[in-house]
């Protein structure tokens, strides 16, 4: 199993990626010599303190930022080309639903822009609402839903146009612990059902270890990768896996990696 995954063609590949922002205080080295390969079906978490470039790297994959050096490919293409080919769906920290559209209307937004016909739009809305466990909520307006439900709707919106990659930038960061646990569990089920490749930015060590097949530990000034951990945990993960020695061991290694990154500056 592990072998077939390793030989699968890389979905995202970064070689010596550098990204420098020009700011009023001079250049900021947001990403320095980032090398990473993400294979099809991987669940990759990016973890690190603020300023370590984890969000910037995710945004570079999405072609929302331009690397200033190195090679970055998505599905073997340049990121902006991949975007035009609907390679990924992006989930932001805030749900960002349009308050003037119903939940179904919000999920239709990318479908309208991409030119799906009406019948197809309706069918897809039904399907993804079901996928995120929001069936029957299509006619509600965002303010009628809780924060967790809104974020699930935004995930449905990212899934609606069948991108193979799901990029998530701290999607549950603004939610409380209990809601977060449940959404993490649901996200794993969703991942198992759809076989998407997921890039997931987080601040939380337990979240990263619980969700990922691959954990990328990053550190700031300049933003860089300090450790890449291939998780030995099985793909089926009940919530209480977090009390097993393996889980605690990986969490410990992540924490060590974060600490090592910090002692550098």
């Amino acid at each position: 199993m592990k072998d077939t995954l390793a030989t699968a063609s890389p979905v995202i590949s970064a070689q010596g990626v550098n990204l420098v922002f020009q700011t009023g205080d001079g250049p900021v080295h947001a990403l320095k010599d980032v090398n990473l390969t993400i294979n099809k079906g991987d669940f990759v978490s990016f973890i690190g303190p603020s300023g370590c470039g984890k969000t910037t790297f995710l945004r570079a994959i999405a072609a929302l930022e331009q690397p200033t050096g190195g090679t970055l490919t998505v599905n073997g293409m340049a990121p902006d080309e991949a975007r035009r080919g609907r390679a990924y769906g992006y989930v932001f920290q805030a749900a960002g639903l349009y308050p003037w559209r119903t939940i179904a209307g919000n999920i239709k937004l990318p479908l309208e822009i991409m030119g799906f016909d009406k019948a197809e739009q309706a069918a897809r809305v039904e399907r993804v609402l079901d996928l995120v466990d929001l069936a029957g909520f299509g006619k509600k307006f965002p303010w009628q839903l809780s924060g967790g439900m809104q974020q699930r709707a935004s995930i449905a919106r990212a899934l609606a146009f069948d991108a193979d990659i799901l990029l998530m930038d701290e999607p549950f960061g603004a939610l409380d612990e209990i809601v977060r646990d449940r959404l993490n569990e649901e996200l794993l089920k969703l991942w198992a059902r759809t076989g998407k490749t997921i890039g997931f930015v987080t601040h939380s060590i337990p979240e990263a270890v619980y969700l990922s097949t691959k954990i990328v530990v990053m550190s700031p000034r300049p933003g860089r990768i300090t450790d890449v951990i291939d998780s030995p945990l099985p793909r089926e993960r009940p919530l209480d896996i977090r009390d097993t020695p393996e889980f605690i061991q990986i969490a410990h290694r992540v924490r060590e990696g974060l600490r090592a990154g910090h002692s550098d500056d």
Partner: protein
Amino acid sequence: MTRATPILAVLALILAVWYLAVPMANIQWEVDQAARAGTPTNPAGALGAVLPQTALVLANPDLIPATYAQERPVLPAPHQIVEELWKTTAGTKLSSKKNLVYHGLVTLTSTFWGFVVGSLLGIVMAVMITRSRTVEMGLMPWAIISQTVPVVAIAPMIVVLSNSAGLGEHLGVENRLVSKVIIAAYLSYFPVLVGMIKGLRSPDPMQLDLLKTYSASEGQGFFKLRLPASVPYLFASLKVGIAASLVGTIVGELPTGAVEGLGARMLVGSQFGSPIMVWAALFAAAILGGVLISIVRLAEGLVTRRMGVRA
């Protein structure tokens, strides 16, 4: 009922102050009249040095009732204005030049067209300005300067220019209407412009990024995000805009020798020394303004409810 209580309390306070002020404003004339008729009156006394009007009222309490019933008072009492309003609306034929409803409709016509023209101009300018930095730098200073020029100064020039250009004949309407509409639009476009710019720029960077991840075009971003996001801002500025349009119309009616409209009534009233007539026209304008803003608010309610705003 509870919602009406604060409004009624303020109204009661205003009326109380008003009724107290009326004798002070009008007593001098009553005293002069009495003196002319040879009826003895009392001088103001010691207090007169500090508060001459109050002292005169206190010294001649028997003259107070008459101050509420003068034909040309300095300050008419509220009931006199209401009486005049009633007489010049319900009590007069609609086609008569003395009917305030007739004059109100004349003012309403210009206000409406000024509002339509001004709002459209404001919206179109805002769209252009938010789409291009160059247009913003070219237009925005002029838009701001346009509002620092007093309308009363510019209104007569607009009247003269639009008359001599014969704009009305080209459009098939009265020249006077054209100049009033221009002045009203001149005042009402600005709040709409400012509100719309703010509204079109209200979507946050995250929402713009989201559209980028869909490879959405500029046009799609405009119609699906910027335009709907600007609606609450638009209605806030339309309420200011329609009031400004009414003010513009009345100002346009004042210096132009207009014979119709609430502004003309105010002018005629002051020329003929009839303050009650001026006040009645003023009240009519205030009522008209209130009604117009209520209509915009009603439209806002209908639109925002359709856009899912919580009731």
